[in-house]
């Protein structure tokens, strides 16, 4: 245990700090505990309703089921933190997945190269969004509404609306599993968790991460501080595009096909996950890990209600109610702060 002297510059009195206090400082702030509590409560509820819920295999399944929205959610969170929004995400993912599967299967390209092309195409769409937002100064909502349609049309034209099957092993790699105890876990699940962790650390502990929050909070002040906001915004949108491409690869590995009809509900689903996770749609605040929790809440509800034999339509009802509650909580805590 360390005893430290007072630091007159900070004006803070730093007395001897216990390990517990140091530990608590590294945890997320109380506001983002809410979603985690909600997830825990939901899981506890379903555990009482069905003996098949609390099962390693079941949890592994739920994680696989939220891969698509989960990874797209990383990109969506980054964009929303800057006070933007990305409606094109799912359709960009679908286009990328068609590019990578068709290049590998129809053009016979090396699988790694094909995957790289798919990722590049998605990042390209992301850059396009960013460029339109920063150079032409269009609102993100409108820009991504436009690119959503462009991505969808290009997907249908290039794929002729046909599913691509007969995929190579490399494309299917992330669907392979390994054992933990008695449970099979896919590599895709691991990748998603790793991506979340990495992105969370960057957002929290690096200057770039702080700048992203700053842009969302007050773009003008951030710019006046000398931070190149426009370039950073473009990079955020491009990076988001890359995440959509990764989501496409994971989806391809999970379903075993390149599906031109995939991703059509992902924009609203990823925004739902972001909101349920406690991130503000107005930008500037929120936790990336919250998005994962939000996606899991939806996945757990879908899984739990199916185990209970409840009709699908109630999953939608409950999700809607939760979204309202989550936004209300965000609004109330905003009022309390300022």
């Amino acid at each position, binding site marked *: 245990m360390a005893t430290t002297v007072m630091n007159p510059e900070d004006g803070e009195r730093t007395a001897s700090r216990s390990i517990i206090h140091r530990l608590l400082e590294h945890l997320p702030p109380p506001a983002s505990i809410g979603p985690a509590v909600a997830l825990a409560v939901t899981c506890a509820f379903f555990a009482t309703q*069905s003996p*098949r819920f609390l*099962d390693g*295999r*079941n949890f592994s*399944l739920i994680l*696989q*089921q939220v891969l*698509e929205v989960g990874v797209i959610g990383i990109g969506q969170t980054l964009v929303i933190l800057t006070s933007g929004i990305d409606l094109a995400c799912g359709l960009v993912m679908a286009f990328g997945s068609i590019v990578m599967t068709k290049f590998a299967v129809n053009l016979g390209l090396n699988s790694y190269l094909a995957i790289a092309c798919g990722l590049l195409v998605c990042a390209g769409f992301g850059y396009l969004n960013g460029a339109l937002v920063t150079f032409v100064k269009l609102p993100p909502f409108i820009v991504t509404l436009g690119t959503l*349609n462009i991505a969808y049309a290009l997907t*249908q034209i290039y794929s*002729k*609306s*046909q*599913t691509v*099957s007969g995929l190579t092993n490399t494309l299917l790699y992330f669907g392979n599993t390994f054992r933990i105890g008695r449970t099979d876990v896919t590599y895709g699940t691991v990748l998603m968790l790793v991506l979340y962790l990495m992105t969370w650390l960057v957002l929290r502990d690096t200057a770039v991460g702080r700048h992203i929050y700053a842009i969302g909070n007050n773009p003008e002040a951030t710019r006046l501080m000398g931070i190149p906001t426009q370039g950073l915004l473009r990079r955020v949108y491009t990076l988001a595009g890359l995440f959509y491409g990764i989501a496409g690869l994971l*989806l391809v590995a*999970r*379903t*075993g*096909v390149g*599906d*031109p*009809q*995939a991703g*059509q*509900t992902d924009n609203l689903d990823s925004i739902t996950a972001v909101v349920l996770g406690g991130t503000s749609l107005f930008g500037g605040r929120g936790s990336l890990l919250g998005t994962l929790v939000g996606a899991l809440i939806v996945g757990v509800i*879908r*899984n739990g209600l*199916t*185990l209970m*034999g409840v*009709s*699908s*339509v109630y999953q939608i009802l409950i999700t809607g109610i939760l979204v309202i509650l989550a936004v209300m909580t965000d609004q109330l805590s905003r009022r309390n702060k300022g």
Partner: protein
Amino acid sequence: MNKSGIGLVALLLVTGLAVRANEKPIIGLITKTDSNPFFVKMKQGAEQAANKDGATLMSAAGKFDGDNATQVTAIENMETAGAKTILITPSDTKAIVPAIEKARKSGVMVIALDTPTDPRNATDALFATNNFTAGELIGEYAKKAMGDKPVKIATLDLAPGITVGVLRHNGFLQGFGIKEGDPHIVCSQDTRGDQAKGQTAMENCLQKDPDINLVYTINEPAAFGAYQALKAAGKEKNVMVVSIDGGCPGVKAVQEGEIAATSQQYPLKMAAMGVNAGVQFAKDGKKASGYVDTGVNLITDKPESGVPSKSTKFGLAECWGG
């Protein structure tokens, strides 16, 4: 007017009449979307029939399933452009009715393809698959094929209230000989006809009851998703999957044993019949009427007695969607 003047006028009149008579009838085709291979095939069929019968085809499509506004606009534009017959697969079976009625009042013949409007007689005629029969066929097949085995059924449906999904689901139950709420149905989840959502629904159903041995699916993408989930759980050999649509990927899946049987429907036939009716109407003013069942065939390579079916060879020759 002198004699040559009258002659000129007469010549112009006759030429004008001849041109009118040779004018190709304009037929409009409005599908739900442009991306579903079912509608792609329908449009191809309509184009072929139009070329053969000497008609001009105009086409339009909604942007997504449920996009009523685009279809309304298309009806109005096609009518203005001179289409005397409009073929439509209505995205919203109720909301499209006022636009159809307006067109019919101006003398346009409107025929519904694949999906009836609500009410059905809002259109002059309906050329469609009987979706209930399509469900019944696979229900009867499944009942015979399962025999005396104790059966646990999962239904992978479309979405609340959509006619096609409801008819197929109820047809399946009728064909199998059970009613809604029967204890043999252990799981029912919606898929929106999407492959990834079908996979998720099957995974969750299997988690609920690992002994499911019969799966009804609303369409073949949902069936592919179900098969993927069954394979991951190591159950694909012991579980029977039945489906509806008869697209080429689906029939191939029957050939490969992934789907046990599928009810095949014929979008090309619907479109061709529609174009023929339009040409007939332009010729002699006789409107098509009533409901014409464009037929459905059970496709399987393991036929059951008492349930008429055709082989995958037939299915592949007649299928749609590449």
